[in-house]
């Protein structure tokens, strides 16, 4: 129902705007892997990974070779139907039972503002991105095997955000049946986080798919997408739990990779260029 609402919402905006191109990309069963490291011994966690749909809503002005703007919003997580995975924090002592086990869902909501401009000729265009990214970590079901403690009712949500710039290339080859590809690399800083290094991470994205233009105003496409995201954070935060050293809920360095097959639907409004 929510997905239908979003489709109708963006089609409605397109109709109002009377120009441009809207698309909805969904990775129904994207696999998300999350790895972390800290600056303190014993401060890592193993995450079994999770499945979560990824949604990307995109709007661009009418495509012209001498430049046009676009917006895209990416989201994955519990809100979009993501599952929970198990996170395990090992004990500092080798061979000891785990210090902490909990459920974890990793999601993100990222906004990209993109300027597109064609290269000198052909179907390839360059893209210049500005972006605000936010990674969201939800934890619950905390158990501490090393001390036999169960933290009933305890949950936590914490977030990391960063601002960045990036460059990319994209191309569409073919007309009625086409091959589309896109890749980008983004570099991030954390303007509002004075205690973290200025170099706050990077995102690398690559995708490609085969499409069918059913009509001049509508096309559908199938393909694959992969994203690799490294981000720094202050980390080292714990929640107070009696009988333990606290529930570990944040780390200094996080690497999140996401990949899967996508379905993309694209609508054009207004005059074609």
């Amino acid at each position, binding site marked *: 129902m929510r997905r239908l609402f979003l489709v109708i919402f963006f089609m409605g905006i397109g109709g109002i705007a009377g120009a441009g191109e809207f698309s909805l990309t969904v990775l129904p069963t994207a696999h998300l892997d999350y790895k972390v490291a800290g*600056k303190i011994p014993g401060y890592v966690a193993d995450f079994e990974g999770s499945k979560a749909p990824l949604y990307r809503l995109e709007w661009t002005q009418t495509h012209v070779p001498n430049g046009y703007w676009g917006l895209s919003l990416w989201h994955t997580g519990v809100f979009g139907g993501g599952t929970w995975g198990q996170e395990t924090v090992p004990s500092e002592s080798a061979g000891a039972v785990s210090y902490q086990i909990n459920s974890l869902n990793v999601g993100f909501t990222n906004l990209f503002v993109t300027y597109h401009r064609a290269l000198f000729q052909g179907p390839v265009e360059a893209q210049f991105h500005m972006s605000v990214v936010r990674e969201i970590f939800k934890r619950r079901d905390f158990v501490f095997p090393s001390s036999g403690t169960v933290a009933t009712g305890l949950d936590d949500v914490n977030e990391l955000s960063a601002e960045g710039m990036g*460059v990319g290339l994209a191309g569409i080859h073919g007309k009625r049946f086409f091959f589309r590809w896109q890749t980008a690399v983004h570099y991030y800083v954390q303007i509002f986080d004075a205690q973290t290094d200025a170099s706050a991470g990077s995102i690398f994205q690559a995708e490609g798919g085969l499409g069918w233009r059913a009509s001049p105003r509508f096309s559908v496409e199938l393909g694959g997408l992969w994203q690799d995201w490294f981000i720094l954070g202050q980390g080292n935060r714990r929640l107070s739990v009696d009988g333990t050293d606290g529930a570990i809920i944040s780390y200094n360095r996080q690497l999140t990779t996401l990949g899967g097959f996508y379905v993309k639907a694209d609508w054009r409004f207004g005059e074609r260029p």
Partner: protein
Amino acid sequence: MRGVFLTVCVLFLSVVSKASSDFSLYGLPQALMEYEGTGYREVSAGWELKVKPLCPVGGIRWRHEFNKQWALQSQYWVNRPTYAEESWNARSPDVKQFDQTRLSLQSLWADVRAPLWASPVEVVAGVNGAYQSFRRKNIVYGSTNEPGDYLETHTALGVHMGVHAGSQKNSGAHRPGSYWDSEVLLSHYLWTKNNLTTSGGTIDTGGYAYSFRLEGGLVFGRVRLGVGYLRQMYEIFVPGGRSLPEGSAVSLPINKTDLFGPFISLGWIY
């Protein structure tokens, strides 16, 4: 022999090319390098190793334009390594590590460049690699001396994209002119490797890098003389974290090296 080969290649391409290309040498007399390694695996205490040598850096950049639409560029940067004091931000103030580290860094970037539609700005796409090594000696951990010296190496290969902009060449002009040139390259490492590996831990491989260069100066016929600023950053993830028997660290999993400083450049337009 390599110099002769390079010269022959440049001369050959200058004959077949109808566009203007250039070959430039760079020197950073006192570049500042900052290395910070973090994380742990075998290391039981401490979490951050830092060394900040001040050393000369040199570079070679060769850009060849096949026509007004396509150009190739490769650039190579290397520092002259010197020993500098490395220190350890410890978890406990009573146990720290000090040593002498010689940080050596080399990087090679090769790419294709094409202009945007109706614009002098170029888009860049290519591949790059970095190799850095750390020779550590005189290691003191707490009050214990670690005998011997240890070599840690990192290798990384990746892809990059970027933007290049600059003034048009004016080779052959009768009067001296001016020029400026700049680029930003952003890289993602697809493959990394180190020699002092350990098991365990989470973030194993990958990384990213950037390179920023801005320069300007004068053009005398086919010769360019300029000054500018270079800033590069290499973040390399490897399964590091090796410790010595006394507890000191000789490798770490997450390694960031910054290189920056002003430079002088000498170029030849052909």
